[in-house]
């Protein structure tokens, strides 16, 4: 497939998940996960390339990889003898093995049942074959027409084999769709769910309203996939919270981050994440500072400076840490610009600290910015007239 397949006009080909493959067990990047969740046996490669704002080559690469891994497959692979033109029912041929001519049900009806059954995860209005905004009358009409085809009573006392259960499954789903869509209250709920499942896709390019509607239905098909993802998210979140309770902050943050990746719409996860993240940051900063101290002991100043700088990302409002980082940058690394930045931050956080002012002044002096140095050293002396070092520095200017 991929770029090569695309060049051969294979963009119209439709990948689907290989039977028995559970995508939730794969380790995927958010972009990969997003793309895989869109592969539903109905969306063509071309559409997959267009949605989600991923580069075409990247989409092709992922798809190629999954085909090789056996995660997804194409039913209309040119290598196989059966080939459908565009618009053919995807997966029609995979039914052949399930069709049993010895049953008391025509092959045509068996095929129809199998086809319908594969689409039971579609949004309710698609199951009934009506527009999203169809009125109750149209919904009822569709329900009656489908009931005539799928109600088990139509095939009363016949030898249906496994089709008895299939028919019942189909009818129950048709009934569910009818019940939910014919009642304005439940219908509104169904539509809210559809819209909510659309939210993660909003990251993509702004679509036209038609494209948006198409995506709405496509995403509806994915409701089930999303449900699987939501369940997965819940387990991640739960293990994250138990790690949090056990004060394993980093592990907690990792798990909760995963939970959010699997269920980006969940506000509760996000709220919890800010707490978890704060703790995790503190923890991370502590580890980095400790490592920095170790490096200092080894007189590895350059490494220590880097570690403290990293720690600052997680503890940006720690004046002491800023000043330590400033000193290291000034005295060990010689990066006066960074040194000045950290020292200035420390002064901003703790404006009444004379030592911080003096350090900033010394850094200015080292950089040759005399007037700035004088201003800061004077300020330091004002804060602490007994600061000998500051007065020495000021005199030397």
């Amino acid at each position, binding site marked *: 497939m991929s770029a090569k397949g695309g060049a051969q006009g294979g963009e119209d080909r439709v990948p689907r998940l290989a039977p028995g493959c559970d995508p939730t067990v794969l380790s995927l990047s958010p972009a990969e996960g997003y793309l895989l969740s869109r592969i539903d046996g109905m969306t063509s490669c071309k559409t997959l390339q267009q949605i989600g704002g991923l580069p075409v080559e990247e989409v092709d690469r992922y798809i190629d990889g999954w085909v090789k891994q056996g995660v997804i497959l194409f039913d209309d692979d040119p290598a196989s003898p059966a080939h459908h033109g565009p618009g053919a029912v995807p997966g029609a041929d995979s039914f052949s093995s399930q069709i049993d001519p010895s049953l008391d049900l025509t092959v045509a009806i068996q095929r129809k049942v199998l086809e319908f059954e594969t689409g039971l995860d579609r949004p309710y209005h698609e199951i009934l074959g009506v527009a999203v905004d169809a009125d109750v009358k149209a919904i009822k009409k569709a329900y009656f027409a489908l009931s*005539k085809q799928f109600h088990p009573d139509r095939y009363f*006392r016949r030898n249906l084999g496994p089709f008895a259960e299939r028919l019942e499954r189909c*009818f129950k789903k048709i009934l569910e769709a009818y019940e939910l869509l014919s009642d304005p209250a439940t219908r509104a709920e169904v539509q809210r769910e559809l819209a909510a499942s659309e939210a993660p896709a909003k990251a993509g390019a702004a679509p036209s309203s038609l494209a948006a509607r198409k995506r709405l239905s496509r995403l509806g098909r994915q409701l089930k996939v999303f449900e699987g993802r939501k369940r997965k998210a819940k387990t991640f979140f739960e293990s994250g919270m138990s790690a949090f309770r056990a004060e394993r902050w980093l592990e907690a943050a990792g798990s909760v981050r995963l939970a959010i990746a699997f269920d980006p719409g969940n506000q509760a996860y996000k709220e919890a994440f800010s707490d978890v993240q704060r703790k995790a940051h503190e923890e991370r900063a502590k580890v980095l500072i400790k490592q920095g101290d170790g490096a200092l002991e080894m007189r590895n100043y350059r490494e220590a400076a880097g570690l403290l700088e990293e720690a600052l990302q997680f503890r940006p409002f720690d004046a002491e840490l800023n000043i330590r980082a400033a000193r290291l940058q000034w005295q060990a690394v010689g990066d006066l610009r960074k040194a000045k930045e950290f020292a200035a931050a420390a002064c901003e956080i703790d404006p009444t600290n004379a030592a911080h002012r003096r350090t900033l002044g010394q850094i200015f002096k080292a950089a040759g910015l005399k007037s700035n140095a004088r201003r800061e050293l004077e300020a330091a002396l004002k804060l602490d007239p007994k600061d000998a070092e500051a007065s020495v520095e000021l005199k030397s200017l």
Partner: protein
Amino acid sequence: MNHVIGIDLGTTNSCVAIIENGQPSVIPNAGGYKTTPSMFAITQDGKRLVGHLAKRQAITNSKDTVFATKRLIGRRFDAPEVQKSIDFSPFQIVRGPNDDPRIEIAGKTFTCPEISALILREMKRVVEEYLGEHVHDAVITVPAYFNDAQRQCTKDAGKIAGLEVLRIINEPTAAALAYGFNKHNDEKVAIYDLGGGTFDVSILEMSDGVVEVLATAGNTFLGGEDFDHRIVAHLLEIFQQSEGIDLKGDTMALQRLKDAAEKAKCDLSSRETTEINLPFIASDASGPRHLSQELTRETLESLVGDVVRGTLKTVEQCLSDADLTVGAIEQIILVGGQTRMPLVQAAVTEFFGKRPHKGVNPDEVVAIGAAIQGESLVSENDNLLLLDVTPLSLGIATFGGHFAKLIERNTTVPARKSHLFTTTRDNQSAVKIRVLQGESETASENDLLGEFVLGGIRPSRKGEPEIDVSFDIDANGIVSVFARDTATGKEQSITVNATGTLSSEEIQHIIEENELYEVQLKQPNEVERKK
């Protein structure tokens, strides 16, 4: 192809129909009547009589003549409806070993399904004589508000009668099928079914061969018999006042009064007044006493006016269940002999603001509908589909004696619904799932259909385990309940068998006994044929 017979097993009369050459027709019995009294009797010399023969000798043999068993079937002996029947029945009703009411006549005890089976067998025989061939398959109708136990007992009765019951369907639904037969317009129809012993209302929507039941409501203990009781009570009171004699303890007098009341009631549907004459109804020291009383339509209407008004409340409830207003109903169909009463027709007309449909025979329409449904099930090219509903809500008993409904009444079948439940105590290792049917929010006020225990729940705090309980009703109305512990995947399930019904051994035993009896009965016929 074998015929499927449609049987309207009524409280007072039964009726049977088949589809012949694509047209439904009611089969008359040997006497030429299209309906057969749902009565059974054993005479002094041990002869068993069913139908008109049983009815004809009811007055002289009231103690050994059974009627209206439909009011008892599938109920428990202690149920108020059964106790009320005991007061009015000239025959003996006793407590059976399963706490079910049983009937004792001529020194023999019968279960209610057995009595119903005798009537069903008679209906089967009517068709077999007409067709000259055996029939096996049947669709039997029951009141829409019959619960699972009552339906199961009716099915058992069919089995005892040697029938394969393809489906038990609701009487008003059957009526709608008959009305909608070969009609192709879209319509919303209300069925007002006031029969001998039960009252049902159903609202259905028809569209090009699909008949969808939108809602159904009713009362299984309200019908023409209650009208008769009111008249009897009225006559008893008058007799007591004028003659000073209480006839309540006199079973033969009661049976004569009941007969006369029914006849007077029917008369008053076409006339303004009627005469009730019962000579020699009683006697005391001063000689024989006669009852001679004029009854006017006005008096009758004052006696039963509240009952008729009460039915309209049920109609209102049904409309609201269907989420419809009176104006949305395009056609009203009256079913059941009691709807011949002018007061009933007037009340319905006033309520709906339009006249009921006149094109169906209220006595025959249910059997015809049953035959239509039977035919549509077995025929391959039929264009008719019935989307039937559950008449009563199903659910489980929850903490504090509450009833959690999982399948609401009027849910189309087949259907599956599930819900999560949890434990109520810390470290609770098992939950008991009690499956109930009914409308009350208090668990104990509903019918218990069955129960089972799901064990092996991991010890945890209360409220933490997730028990997924699913209800599954197939197209035949058979209920299965599954409970699964989502943590362990452990599962338990039952297919609900109504309580208080006969075991399959008991049914087999009755069938064998009846077979012995049937040989006796058929002998004279065979002799006749040989001649």
